[in-house]
């Protein structure tokens, strides 16, 4: 029995042994495309449920509970609803672009999955320019949003689209600059090599990595239009922003793109700063036992399901008792934990104003990213105690100074109100 860590890789190799030699490279491509195309919508469907459940709990509600046990069938019923809804196109809309825009939104997001290392030896394409590829492909999304908003020929849509372009372009700059420090330290653009470089220490636990990671994550949040940076949608101001005029499956495609992008932002932050699929060597049987207890105690599940679940988990724990928790499970757990943070943000923060949004990107993140490159240089050039202390001091002073400089001028003189007469 192959080790749990490589179970999918070994399965694929075993399967390919059955094929003739000439077909194997093509089969490899087909499997990668198939897995991504099948997994991406499934991931998105359950992300919506995850988000709705978590945000509901933060608002003292239950969230979906009626469709299936714990509302687990809710995404399926939502999908069915979207499929059978009427597809409405506004009368004066540009019909071709209106139809193409959601497709151009989804396609690059799915392309991005290609360079995401899900586990050890589990990446669809280990490009040696992986980071560059991410920024190049992700920026296509702003074209899609602008096309969709403009083609709808609606004021709400156009306003949302213009906001989106301004926001996405602004946040791409500090997002890309925050990664420069990482490239400088690791000396590579390949995602797999970056994960390998974090074997000893995750980059989040270095001073420059902490700043860069937080900035990269926040810029990512802004680029996938999620609260508190959801200016392009702004449901309280623009009804639904750029996708106001979309319904049915096209609307579902917009949502697919948005959720997958949010998932990828979490995934890339994990890969670049949180050690990717690396994790402490916790024995797998511990996790299996914990999961078995949770499944066994789930009161709403039918008894046979609980029994089978406990048995399967116990068997897996016994079978792979010598293995640590597999790398793909670490990656998934970290990514979902980060997605929880995204939902947590949505449950906590109100939307930023347009000027605050731009100010954050240009007046705080951009200088901070530039300073961070310098701090990373200091951290690399000097050995441990000196370099770390110097870069921490540099970054703290920089953050403090930027906040002080950017503070709005406020006069403490009492305001006088003059009534018009």
């Amino acid at each position, binding site marked *: 029995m192959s080790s749990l860590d490589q179970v999918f890789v070994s399965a694929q190799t075993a399967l390919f042994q059955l094929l003739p030699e000439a077909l194997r490279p093509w089969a490899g491509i087909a499997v990668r495309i198939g897995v991504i195309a099948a997994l991406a919508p499934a991931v998105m469907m359950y992300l919506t449920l995850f988000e709705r459940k978590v945000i509901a709990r933060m608002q003292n509600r239950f969230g979906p509970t009626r469709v299936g046990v714990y509302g687990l069938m809710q995404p399926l019923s939502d999908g069915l609803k979207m499929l059978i809804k009427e597809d409405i196109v506004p009368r004066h809309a540009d019909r071709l672009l209106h139809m193409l825009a959601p497709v151009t939104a989804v396609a690059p997001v799915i392309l991005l999955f290609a360079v995401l290392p899900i586990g050890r030896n589990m990446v669809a394409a280990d490009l040696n320019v992986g980071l560059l590829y991410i920024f190049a492909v992700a920026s296509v999304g702003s074209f899609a949003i602008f096309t969709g908003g403009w083609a709808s020929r609606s004021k709400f849509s156009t306003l949302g689209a213009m906001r989106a372009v301004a926001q996405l372009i602004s946040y791409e700059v500090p997002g890309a600059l925050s990664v420069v420090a990482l490239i400088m330290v690791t000396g590579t653009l390949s995602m797999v090599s970056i994960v390998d470089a974090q074997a000893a220490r995750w980059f989040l636990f270095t001073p420059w990595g902490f700043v860069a990671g937080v900035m990269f994550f926040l810029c990512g949040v802004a680029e996938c239009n999620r609260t508190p940076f959801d200016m392009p949608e702004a449901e309280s101001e623009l009804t639904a922003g750029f996708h106001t005029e979309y319904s049915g499956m096209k609307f579902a495609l917009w949502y697919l793109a948005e959720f997958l992008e949010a998932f990828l932002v979490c995934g890339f932050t994990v890969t670049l700063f949180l050690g990717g699929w690396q994790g402490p060597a916790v024995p797998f049987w511990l996790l299996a036992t914990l999961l078995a207890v949770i499944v066994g105690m789930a009161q709403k599940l039918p008894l046979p399901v609980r029994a089978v679940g406990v048995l399967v988990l116990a068997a897996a724990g016994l079978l792979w008792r010598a293995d640590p928790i597999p790398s793909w499970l670490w990656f998934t757990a970290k990514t979902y934990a980060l997605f929880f943070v995204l939902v*947590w943000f949505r449950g906590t923060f109100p939307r930023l104003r347009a000027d605050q949004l731009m100010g954050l990107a240009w007046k705080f993140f951009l200088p901070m990213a530039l300073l961070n490159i310098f701090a990373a240089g200091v951290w690399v050039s000097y050995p441990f105690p000196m370099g770390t202390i110097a870069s921490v001091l540099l970054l703290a002073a920089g953050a403090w100074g930027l906040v002080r400089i950017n503070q709005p001028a406020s006069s403490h003189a009492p305001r006088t109100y003059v009534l018009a007469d």
Partner: protein
Amino acid sequence: MALIGSGVLQGLGVTLRTFIETYPWGKALLGVLRIRTGQGLVTIEYPDVRQQHHERQRIFPFLVYDGAPDNLRCVSCKICEQECPPQCIHINGPAKDEQGRPAKVHGRTYPVTFDINVAICMSCRICVDVCPFDAIEMDNEFELSTEERFGRLVFNKARLLKSNEYFQQIKPTEAAEVDARLAAKAKPSPKPAAPAPAAGPTAAPAA
């Protein structure tokens, strides 16, 4: 000067606490950590669990009868029909016998038909306030939705009639008041009856 971002972290703390305390284990954890908790889950899962409504909750009127359904208190005076602001009450009556005289059951006239349209009623309770016979009261039944727009949304006399026991059950306080008032009205009825013969002769010559 407060630490940069401390307000943001504080806000995140509030939401995280709210999230955790909705789970039983989370509530226990917060109790151990001595963190003040809020009210937790407030949702009442309606079809499975029913909320205890206030006694004075009012949705839609019904007609009260004592004992048997033909002994309804309504005498078809049509005051409620006239006073109803959205005019959702329609009464035909009082019932007449073959000679055209008012027909009486249990010594009272009664309506032939009594319809109230749920779609129009605004639950204002004015019909209850104006009724001199305490014949109409507000029900707290709220599951009135129906698939048929015209037939089922108009409640006829048969559907409106409900017993006084039902009234006492859903609104004990108000029913006790009404019962006391009706009893007081019923008791002194001999008294006005007693002076009536005395008043009758004096009134008659005056006329």
